C-alpha cells in the first residue's frame, strides 16, 4: 500500500508487520518517532501480542532486548548517537551471545560538541561489535531492510543494525510502499531461536571463555558474517521476488560499467551522488557510483569487482576516523589490494552539514583532474580554521573551540535550526 508518510513512521509500520514481540523504547533524536509510532500501535491494539517497554536508558533498552531474545521473543529496539554509545557494552554482548535482535540506528553525530544532526559516527563506532550493519539509501529501502533484517538475523542468530540517516530519512515525508501483512508473513517465518532459555531444556548462556577457546569463538563470529555475505543477496532476491522491488543486497553499483571515476558512499547521500553522476554522464564524464548497503559484513569481493577497472575511487565518508581519515576507505583499500588506482577520501556531511550537488560536482571534477588531496574535508571553512588555530596558539586559556567557532560564524546553536 502506497503511503505518503514520515520515514520513521514507514519504518514503524514495517517493524509492526514483522510481528515483534518485545520492543524497548528510550527516546533519543532522531530515532524517537519510530518507537513512538510503535508504542501507539501497541497501545491501540493494532500491534497485538507485543510488549512495549519504556526503559530507563539505552543500555537497559538493549539489555531488555537481550533478555527477551534469549528467551525466544522477537525483539526490537532503536537508538542513535550517544544512545548507541551508552549501550555499547550491550551491543557487543548481544552479538557475542548470538541473539537475533534488530535495531534501527537513526544515524547522528556524536558529541562533544553535542549535535543532533546526521552523520555516521555512531554506527561506525560499533562497526566491529559483531552486528550486521545495513545502510539504507532511501526511506523505501529503510522500510524494506527491516523486513529482511529480521529474517537475516534469525537465520544467522546474529543481531542486525539497520542504519538510516537521521532527519534526512527519519524525518522526511516520502511516498513509500508499505507491504501487506500477508506478504511479510510469507517472507518472514515466525522466530525459531537457535538457543532459548527454557525450563524444559535448560542451558547456561553467556559462559566465561578463556584463551583456550576465545579465538575460536571470535573466528566463528567472523564466519557468521561470511555466511551473511552469501545470505544477504539471496534474501534481497527473495524479497524482490515477493515484493517486486530491489532493496538491500551487498552493494549497488550505479553506472560503473566503463567508469574511470567511481564514487563510493553509504546511505542517503547516494541519492545526491547519483544525480550528480547522471549530470556528469550527460556531460560525457565516465563516472559512476557504488552504494555499499552491507557495511558489516564488508563485501570485499563485490567492492573489488565494482571498482577494479576504474582509474580512481572517491570515498565519501560521513564519519571521520580522527587521526587517520576515513573508515570506509580502509575497507575499500583493503578490497582493492594489489590493484593500482588513485584513491580519495572525502569527509563530508559531518554533524548534519548539507552535501550539495554543487559541492559534489566540483569535488568529482577535481577528482577527475586528480587535484584532490588524498584526504579532503568537503566544504571546510579554511579561514575559520586558520583563525581558530592562531587564536589557540596565542592564548593558553583559549576556551572551548566549538563555542569560539560559533561566535566567529555569527551564530549560536539555538539559531542554527
Amino acid at each position, binding site marked *: 500500500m502506497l503511503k505518503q508518510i514520515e520515514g520513521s513512521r514507514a519504518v514503524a509500520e514495517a517493524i509492526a508487520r514483522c510481528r515483534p514481540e518485545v520492543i524497548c523504547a528510550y527516546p533519543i533524536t532522531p530515532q524517537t518517532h519510530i518507537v513512538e509510532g510503535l508504542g501507539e500501535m501497541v497501545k491501540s491494539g493494532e500491534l497485538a501480542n507485543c510488549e512495549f517497554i519504556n526503559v530507563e536508558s539505552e543500555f537497559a533498552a538493549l539489555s531488555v532486548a537481550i533478555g527477551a531474545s534469549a528467551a525466544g521473543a522477537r525483539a526490537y529496539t532503536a537508538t542513535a548517537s550517544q544512545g548507541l554509545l551508552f549501550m555499547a557494552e550491550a551491543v557487543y554482548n548481544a552479538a*557475542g*551471545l*548470538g541473539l537475533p535482535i534488530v535495531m534501527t540506528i537513526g544515524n547522528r553525530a556524536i558529541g562533544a560538541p553535542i549535535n543532533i544532526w546526521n552523520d555516521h559516527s555512531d554506527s561506525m563506532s560499533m562497526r566491529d561489535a559483531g552486528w550486521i550493519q545495513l545502510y539504507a539509501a532511501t526511506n523505501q529501502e529503510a522500510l524494506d531492510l527491516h523486513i529482511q533484517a529480521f529474517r537475516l538475523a534469525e537465520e544467522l*542468530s546474529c543481531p542486525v543494525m539497520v542504519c538510516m540517516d537521521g532527519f534526512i530519512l527519519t524525518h522526511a515525508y516520502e511516498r513509500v510502499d508499505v507491504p501487506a501483512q500477508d506478504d511479510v508473513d510469507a517472507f518472514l517465518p515466525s522466530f525459531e531461536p*537457535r*538457543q*532459548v532459555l527454557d525450563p524444559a*531444556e*535448560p*542451558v*547456561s*548462556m*553467556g*559462559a566465561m*571463555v578463556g584463551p583456550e*577457546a576465545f579465538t*575460536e*569463538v571470535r573466528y*566463528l563470529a567472523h564466519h557468521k558474517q561470511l555466511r551473511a555475505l552469501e545470505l544477504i543477496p539471496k534474501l534481497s532476491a527473495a524479497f524482490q521476488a515477493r515484493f517486486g522491488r530491489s532493496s538491500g543486497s551487498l552493494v549497488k553499483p550505479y553506472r560503473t560499467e566503463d567508469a574511470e571515476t567511481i564514487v563510493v558512499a553509504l546511505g542517503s547521500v547516494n541519492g545526491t551522488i547519483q544525480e550528480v553522476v547522471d549530470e556528469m554522464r550527460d556531460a560525457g564524464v565516465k563516472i559512476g557510483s557504488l552504494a555499499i548497503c552491507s557495511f558489516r559484513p564488508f563485501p570485499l569481493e563485490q567492492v573489488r569487482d565494482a571498482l577494479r577497472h576504474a582509474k580512481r575511487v572517491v570515498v565519501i565518508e560521513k564519519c571521520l576516523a580522527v587521526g587517520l581519515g576515513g573508515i570506509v576507505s580502509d575497507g575499500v583499500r583493503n578490497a582493492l589490494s594489489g590493484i593500482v588506482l588513485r584513491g580519495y577520501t572525502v569527509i563530508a556531511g559531518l554533524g548534519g552539514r548539507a552535501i550539495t550537488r554543487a559541492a559534489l560536482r566540483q569535488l568529482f571534477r577535481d577528482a577527475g583532474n586528480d587535484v584532490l588531496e588524498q584526504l579532503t574535508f568537503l566544504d571546510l571553512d579554511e579561514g575559520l580554521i586558520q583563525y581558530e588555530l592562531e587564536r589557540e596558539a596565542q592564548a593558553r586559556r583559549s576556551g572551548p573551540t566549538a563555542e569560539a567557532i560559533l561566535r566567529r560564524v555569527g551564530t549560536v546553536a539555538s539559531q542554527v535550526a
Partner: protein
Amino acid sequence: MDKPFAITLDVGSSLANKTGSWRTSRPVYVDRLPPCNHACPAGENIQSWLYHAEAGDYEAAWRVLTLDNPLPAIMGRVCYHPCETACNRGKLDESVGINSVERFLGDEALKLAWRFEPPVRDSGKRVLVVGAGPSGLAAAYHLRLLGHAVTIIEAGPLAGGMMRFGIPKYRLPRDVLDAEIQRILDLGIELQLNRKVSNILDTMHSGAFDAAFLAVGAHIAKRAYIPAGSTARMLDAISVLRGMEGEDKPLLGRRVVVYGGGNTALDVARTAKRLGASDAIIVYRRTREKMPAHDFEVEEALQEGVLIKWLSTIRNMADEGTLTVEKMRLDDQGFPQPTGEFETLETDSLVLALGQDVDLSLLDDVPDLVIEHGVVQVASNMMTGHAGIFAGGDMVPSERTVTVAVGHGKKAARHIDAWLRGGRYAPPPAHKLAAFESLNAWYYADAPKTTQPVLDLARRASTFDEVVRGLDESTALFEARRCLSCGNCFECDNCYGVCPDNAVIKLGPGKRFEFNYDYCKGCGICVAECPCGAIEMIPETI
C-alpha cells in the same frame, strides 16, 4: 538445541571438575560418647532411647532402653539420675529430664503390657543367681536373654530386695515393682523364695550350676553404741522399712528421731510422718552440704515438715525417751568434733539409720576369696577370687544404689556368658566424650525442662501415694526432644544444607550422611555448624 560453541553450555557439566583436589583437610563423621550414657551406672544407652522417644516411637525407645536395663518403671522412680547431672543441656538451660522420660516409658510399657522377647536358643548352661534384688534380677534377665537357664534363690518372702524392703511405697508403688519383676520372670526364670543359701558351693553342686552370681545385698543394720534405758524404744531403719511391707506397721509414736544422714534416714523420717508422727527429727553430725542424701530428697522431706538437726550426735537415751544430744563442730578437715555443749530431745522412738552390712555367711567355705571392709572383692569382670562365682550389688565395693546394682547385674551377666563360653567379654571401645564445647548450641531451640508434677503437700504427707507423678505423653515427648544428641548425628540435615559445594550426600531417614570427597573442598562449615559435634576435620594425607 543447536548451541553456539563455548558461550552456551550443557547444564550440570561442572561435575567434571573435581574440586575435592583443593582440600588440605577432610571432614569425617564421628560418634562420641554422650555424657548421660557415660554417667549412667546401669550403662544405659540413654541418648539412643531418647532418639526413638523424640519421634514418639515409645516402644522402640523402651526396647532400646531394656537392652541394658529391664526395670525402667522402677528406675524412672528411684534412680538418682547422675545422667541428668552430666547432661550438657544443663549448661544451656536445664538438664533433660531423662529420669522422668524413663519412667514414662516404663509406665507406658506396663500399661500396654509390652513383653520381652525370649531368647531364640538355649545355651545349655545353668546359672544360679543368689538374691532377687535389682542386681540379681538384672543379671538373671541378661543371662536369660543370652540363652542360659537361670534360677534365682531368694532368702526373703518376696522378690525385689532393697527395692521392696528399703524404699518406701510413696517413692516406688508396689504394683510397679511387682509388674517389672514378673515381666523378667516371664522370660522363663525360676524363682525360689524363702530359701537362704547357706553354702554356695553346695548349692551350686547340688543344682548342677555352671556359674553363680551372688547379689545378696546388705541387710544387716549397723549399730552404734548409744547408752540407753531398758525401756527406751530404739529401732533400726531397715527393720522399720521392712516392717512397712508387713501386716503390722511399726509403732513409732508421735515423736520420732532418726539418727543418720543418708537417704535411708530421710526415707524413715518421711515414713514416720506418714505413719502419723507429729515430729520427725533427723539428727545428723555434719552439715547439709556434707550430707550423703540427695538434695532433692532433703528438699522434699523439709517440705513435708521433717526437721533436721545439723552438727549433732546422740550421746544417750533415757527410759522416758529423753535423748541427750551433743553439738558438734567441723574441724579443718571437715570432720565433726565434739563441743561439750549438750541439749535434750524428747522422743517416743529413736531409729538408727547408720548404714548396713552384708551377710557373707554363704561364702564361709569358699576358698580364694578376698573380703575387705565387709564386702567381697571382685575383678573387673565381676568375678570373685573363686572361678565361676561372680558377685555384685551392695555386697561388692561400690556405691549402693539400685542403678549401680542393675549395672552390676548386666556387666556380670556379660562376663559370665563369656566365661561360660570359654572367652572373655571385651566391651566395645568407648568413644571420646562429647564435651559441651564440641556442640554448636545455637541450633537448639530454647525449651525449659518440664517439671514433673509434685503431689500436693498436705496430701502426700499423710498418704503413701507417689510423691512425684509421671509426665503425660505430650510432656514426655517434649522432654525427650530436649536431648541435644551430644556427639551423635541426629539427622538435622545441617551438614547437608550448609555445604556450599553440595558435597554431602543425604542417605535417607535413619541412614545419616556421607561426604562426597570428589567435591568437598574442606572448608569445614559442616563441622562448625554441626549442632551435636558429630563431625571433625582431619588432615588430608597425600
